[in-house]
């Protein structure tokens, strides 16, 4: 039996973390001002999932007849996806499954999950019993940590892991997985094998270097996929935003440039001890 894996990575795109974000309200509800023109990146935790997927697929390449494969499923405006893919495509090999839809963290997670699940179910050649559904455990936009779980539930996957930092495949197809739990610890579980959902935290891999050859190979399939991407409308599911605002917390910072180390230390110790 081939040990080929079919890894589906769900990943959104998010504003570059260094950008200033300002909420605004439009006809379709809240959004981020100028979000379509802000520089965007692949969602960081989902990017970890993509790199871990590539690492896993390299360890379990399968056979020439039945190789391991990675699909990257993303719901975002096509134009924005194309921009982000120019850099992401240079990292690892994958096949893009784009869905043309709204950007941002304010659409309902349940609606997003429904669209993603339908897109995954329609992937030609994807075998359910070989499937590992990867993604970030939370996004950098909505940050709800429910979308991947809901996608897995809709696809009938009964083994789910969230906050994953490590997976170790075994010869028999089972795997050991480390999930983040409270108190800075990992819960260690052993799962009988695919299918399973793994919502990744940071993982242990550094970001791969850009490889132009990988990029060119990926782009050959990415561009046609983007052209054929279906448009999805997201249900509101009764979600109503009462208010959306920036936090008002701005501190009056006291900057001490002339205190000696001794004075600073005494002040810090006093501050630590104060109730």
């Amino acid at each position, binding site marked *: 039996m081939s040990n080929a894996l079919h890894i589906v990575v769900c990943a959104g795109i998010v504003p570059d*973390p*260094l950008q200033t974000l300002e909420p605004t309200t439009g006809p379709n509800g809240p959004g981020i001002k100028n979000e379509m023109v802000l520089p965007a990146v692949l969602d960081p*935790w989902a990017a970890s999932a993509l790199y871990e997927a590539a690492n896993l697929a390299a360890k379990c390449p399968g056979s020439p007849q039945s190789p391991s494969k990675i699909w990257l499923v993303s719901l975002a405006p096509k134009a924005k996806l194309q921009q982000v893919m120019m850099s992401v495509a240079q990292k690892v090999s994958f096949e893009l499954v784009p869905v043309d839809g709204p950007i941002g963290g*304010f659409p*309902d*997670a*349940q609606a997003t999950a429904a669209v993603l699940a339908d897109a995954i179910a329609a992937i030609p050649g994807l075998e359910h019993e070989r499937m590992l559904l990867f993604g970030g455990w939370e996004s*950098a*936009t909505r*940050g*709800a*940590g*429910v979308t991947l*779980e*809901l996608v897995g*539930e*809709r696809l009938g996957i*009964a*083994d789910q*892991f*969230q906050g994953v*930092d490590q997976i170790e495949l075994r010869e028999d197809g089972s795997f050991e997985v480390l*999930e983040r739990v*409270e*108190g*800075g*610890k*990992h819960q*260690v*579980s*052993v799962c009988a*094998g695919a299918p399973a959902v793994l919502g990744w*935290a940071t*993982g242990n*891999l*550094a970001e791969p270097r850009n490889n132009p050859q990988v990029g060119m190979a990926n782009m050959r399939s990415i561009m046609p996929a983007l052209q054929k991407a279906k448009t999805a409308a997201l249900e509101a*599911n*009764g*979600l*109503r*935003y*009462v*208010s*959306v*605002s*920036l936090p008002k917390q*701005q*501190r009056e*910072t*006291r*900057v*001490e*440039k002339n205190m000696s*180390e001794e004075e*600073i*230390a005494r002040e*810090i*110790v006093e*501050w*630590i001890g104060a109730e």
Partner: protein
Amino acid sequence: MESVLVLTHADESGSALTKGLLEAVTAGRELAMRLGAELTIGIVAKHATSAAAQVAGAAKRLLAVQGEAFAQARFASDAAACEALCRAVMPTIVLAPQSSRFARVMAAVAHRLGGFIDTHITAIGGTDGVEAMRWFYRQRIEAVVSREKRPWFLLLDLGTNSAYAGAEAHAALEGEAAQADEISIAVELPALRTQVIGMRAPNQGAQTIRPDAKLLFVAGAGWTKKQPDGQVHVEEAGELILKFLGASGASLGSSKSLVDQGGEGNSVLPFLSHLNQVGQTGSTPRHAKGLSTCCHGEEPHVVGWRFIGERRAVNLDPNCGWTRGKADVVYVADAFQVMARVNALLEETASSS
């Protein structure tokens, strides 16, 4: 008419509810009282007796799913347990703690019940209905949401409510213990393909992440950079930091750049891992105070400080991000020297007391 179900689960011992897990009970009681709604508490545990006793006076109705299968925090069994509790009550609103155990399953449970879920709720309010506050874009934008559709599941961030500690709960301990079997409901488990085999702390020696600590101490990349003598002093940095953590009881956080150095083959502090990382791609801990050292205070890191009360920073750069309204006090100084003196003073205080 709303009805409220509070779901909670036992801790690693399999039978007790921790402070964080009791917070949802407080929130549930307040919400049910305001809405005039019926309140039920559902418990998932290996043995529900003690847990039931802890919340005995909190609600008129108590239900539990218990057994060996529920000793493990595992998706298939936990989802089945929560689903069974929900079906037994058919509530319009479900409150649960945002623990790793329930965060793993509650969206799936909501889906099975035909409901909807919102997570990381920091406050519940509203005058005529129910409104929930949560953050978006990694704590950079706050929003208040409501939903027309029911059932509505709300996962409450830990540390946002006081833990339920009703006096009547202790008085009822023995009586409730006898009733543990009566409140149990049966669950049909699916095939269990996953086994939890234990917990693992990172290979760092002492545990440096302490969620209950009053102080968060953040080490930035500057600790591993060249110092005025032109050399790096990683070993000394590590000693200073660990000594401070030991003396102060603080929890250790880090910036992404420092943790990432390990993966890039540079000198690193051996006791740091990604679990210590605070910020955009790390955690957002809740501590009363935070002290940042050798960290620039750029936005991707500082978003992780959203729920830190008082903030101070030690940095050599007088124009670092902390000075731009992100900290209460910024000391422009060498953290090596400052922390050495802080440690000496803490040692003096400890020996004199």
